[in-house]
């Protein structure tokens, strides 16, 4: 588990944090109720999105989606990507510096 993934997992309201590569393959993940299939599906979509964005514009460093009951964050460091799913009211942005 990477230090960054570990840091994210400790934020209140985070349900799962995981790391994936540019192909959407999961490298590591915290223990959660989310199946590998679901995380893999999300990772593939996010990796695809990052690829398309880089191709048409620039490299994404941070991406956030807010839904009614969840929020999804992903952070790109150029090599591996880290993502998390959290409760809708989790203070993710506020818990991180520099956002």
């Amino acid at each position, binding site marked *: 588990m990477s230090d960054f993934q570990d840091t994210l997992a400790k934020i209140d309201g985070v349900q799962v944090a995981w790391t994936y590569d*540019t*192909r*959407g393959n999961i490298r590591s993940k915290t223990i959660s109720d989310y199946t590998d299939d*679901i995380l*893999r*599906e*999300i990772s*593939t*979509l*996010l*990796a*695809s*999105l990052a*690829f*398309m*964005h880089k*191709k*048409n*514009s*620039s*490299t*994404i*460093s*941070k*991406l*956030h*989606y*807010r*839904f*009614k*009951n*969840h929020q*999804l964050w992903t952070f790109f460091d150029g090599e591996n990507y880290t993502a998390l*799913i959290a409760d809708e009211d989790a203070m993710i*942005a*506020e818990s991180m510096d520099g*956002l």
Partner: protein
Amino acid sequence: MTSAIHSTHKGSLLVIDDDPGIIESLALHWKHKEIPYNIIFSETVEDALRVLATQQVDVVLTDQQLPDATGLFLMTEINRRHPLIKVILMTARPSEETRLKALALGAVEFIAKPFDLNTLDSLLLNIRSIKHVGFSGIIYQLSLADMVQLKCSTLARVKIILKNGPHEGILYFDKGSFIHSKLGGLEGEEAFYQMFSWQRGQFEEHPYLDNPVKNIKRNWEGLLLEAAQKKDEILISSDQDFDSLPPQDTTPEPLQGDDAWNETKNPPDENAVINLSTFPDVKGSLISSRSGTLLTASLDENPNQAGALASFLVQQGECLARILREETTQEVFIETVLEKRFIFPRGQNLVAIHLAPETASWPMRETFKQSIKSSDS
């Protein structure tokens, strides 16, 4: 329970409905009016699948609401097991969603109950002359990525023979999965990547009865991503331009009909954009339809591209929402070295706000939304 009406004519029609009134009505009607089918009645999907497994059936007339599953589910199974059977879906509760799903699954007709029996007879007479369900013709500039997506999303069981000069490859699809690929001595994903790099070619689609060994392990989305990246790497290394890549412009066609009308009914758009421009952190903003059609903008960049990007991000959000069993995307926030963007829905449309990279934008989210709301009011 299964019952049947036999005639000397060729053709076999399987009717699935658990409503005894419908069954009696159809049986009585066809007892007095001959149609060129042997007719079999079933009341459940399970019973219908048993009939289909043991008897030759040409046409299926099925109700949508059945005791053990839906007609759409039955269609999926028919597509998988008996792709040449023509299907008519009937329902007492017609909806556009069901109609579109039925047509996407290859239904020849979608009919609402109650229906005229003579009209049904005409349909059943004409249906036998339909050689293939769907359109036939020539498609230009269809990418292999488009083809894979289409075949997987429609749960087709088909094989596609792909030709490029002297080379000929084959792709097998089954039940929404891309299962097998072969090109000369190459098999599986490597064969597909090779075909994906072709710039042009021809294809033929056929049903198949053999059972090819599954040699594609990835899901089709991951496979296309990998293929696009490999192709990109090849093109970059060979210094070619990107025009020959599969289309990745996510700007959809402008909506037509009612949707287009609804999308243009937001008169305070310009006021909203003007209000946003008063915030010191805002470099620009736009309002576009969810499909990316620009409605108004105040930007120092190409507004059409910015609108397309906002639409793309929200469309991807809708895919993520489905995975997370959410209804819709409420907000998107994206940050790169060059910029930050905050995107959120506004009725049928989207608002995208372009912010400087150094902006501490997070606390401003609600302020931006409030600004838009006040413009609307």
